């Protein structure tokens, strides 16, 4: 028996060309079903495979399986986003949303019809962009904090006047103090980035920084934001990000901008 895997919902009226990307099972064609101005992007999946203990077990324990599935899921949504010469607004669905038949799918679209329409209206003409910052050079950052921080300069001055033995004893305390101040400076820097990006975005959502195992980077992530930007002001937004990068690079940080993403952080259904 086959079911329908739902990737995303967008407004109908776009190009009715077929999808090049295959479905989540790497076999099924991706196609759309129209429902009163909404368009569901779906593919057929074998129900007995996706509703089985084997898949449930893999979803719990097999990280490489999960990674592969997430990439396949995302690839379909990214193709659905690409209109002729523009980025279409859409609502990405939670991974693993499957319906037993078309009637069930239609009933759900009908049930949430107004919420979908409202959300799509809210997102129309806007794109999600990701901005992440990494601490690439901790020493450089601490150095910049030492230079900017009056309290650290004062303590360093006091230590310079002490006999060598005393200064040696004070060093550990001084280093702890510098680390604490560096952490505070990092928080302030994140606040500053949020504020600056907010001037070029409709909304900014902060997420916890991702671990090194997920990023595959040696440098720790220290800032993780998603920005909702008007399509007409993307260039200004990216220019602003480039300027911010210039500012923080001198302090030992790097900034990464990615997008446009499906509006994962902003496509929430209002109750």
């Amino acid at each position, binding site marked *: 028996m086959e*079911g329908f895997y739902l990737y995303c919902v967008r407004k109908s009226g776009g190009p009715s060309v077929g999808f090049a990307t295959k479905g989540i099972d790497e076999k099924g064609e991706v196609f759309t079903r129209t429902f009163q101005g909404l368009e569901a992007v779906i593919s057929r999946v074998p129900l007995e495979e*996706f509703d089985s203990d084997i898949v449930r077990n893999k*979803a719990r324990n097999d990280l490489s399986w999960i990674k592969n599935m997430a990439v396949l899921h995302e690839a379909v949504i*990214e193709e659905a986003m690409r209109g002729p010469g523009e980025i279409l607004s859409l609502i990405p669905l939670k991974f*693993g949303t499957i319906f037993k038949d078309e009637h069930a799918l239609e009933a759900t679209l009908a049930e949430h019809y107004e919420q979908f329409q409202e959300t799509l209206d809210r997102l129309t003409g806007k794109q999600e962009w990701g901005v992440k910052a990494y601490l690439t050079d901790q020493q450089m950052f601490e150095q910049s904090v030492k230079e900017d921080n009056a309290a650290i300069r004062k303590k360093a001055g006091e230590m310079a006047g002490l006999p060598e033995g005393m200064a040696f004893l004070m060093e550990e305390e001084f280093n702890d103090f510098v680390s604490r101040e560096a952490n505070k400076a990092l928080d302030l820097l994140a606040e500053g980035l949020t504020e600056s990006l907010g001037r070029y975005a409709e909304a900014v959502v902060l997420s916890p920084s991702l671990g090194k195992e997920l990023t595959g980077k040696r440098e720790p992530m220290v800032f993780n934001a998603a920005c909702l930007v008007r399509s007409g002001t*993307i260039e200004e937004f990216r220019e602003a990000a480039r300027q911010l990068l210039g500012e923080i690079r001198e302090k030992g940080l790097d900034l990464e901008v990615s997008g446009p993403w499906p509006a994962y952080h902003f496509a929430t259904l209002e109750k």
Partner: protein
Amino acid sequence: MTQQQMMHATNATNLADILERVLDKGVVIAGDIKIQIADIDLLTIKIRLLVASVDKALEMGINWWQTDPYLSSKAQDAENADRIKKLEDEVHKLKSEA
């Protein structure tokens, strides 16, 4: 409108971006006809816990997974027994001299 260049390629960073979004976000629609594939949330939490514990251990310079407490305590016992034997001999010697 100008054609927006898609900046994604599936490199390591973007894989993290994809996992973060696809597994953590996305609109949930309720309904009894929905078939949910297992506990994805649980998995992401697991990954994060793993990252935290390994990182912390490395940070603290602890390589606890390389030491075998059974073997090392055995070695310690043998050493202690040896020491006790020496002390007992010395006590005997002192007693006989007294």
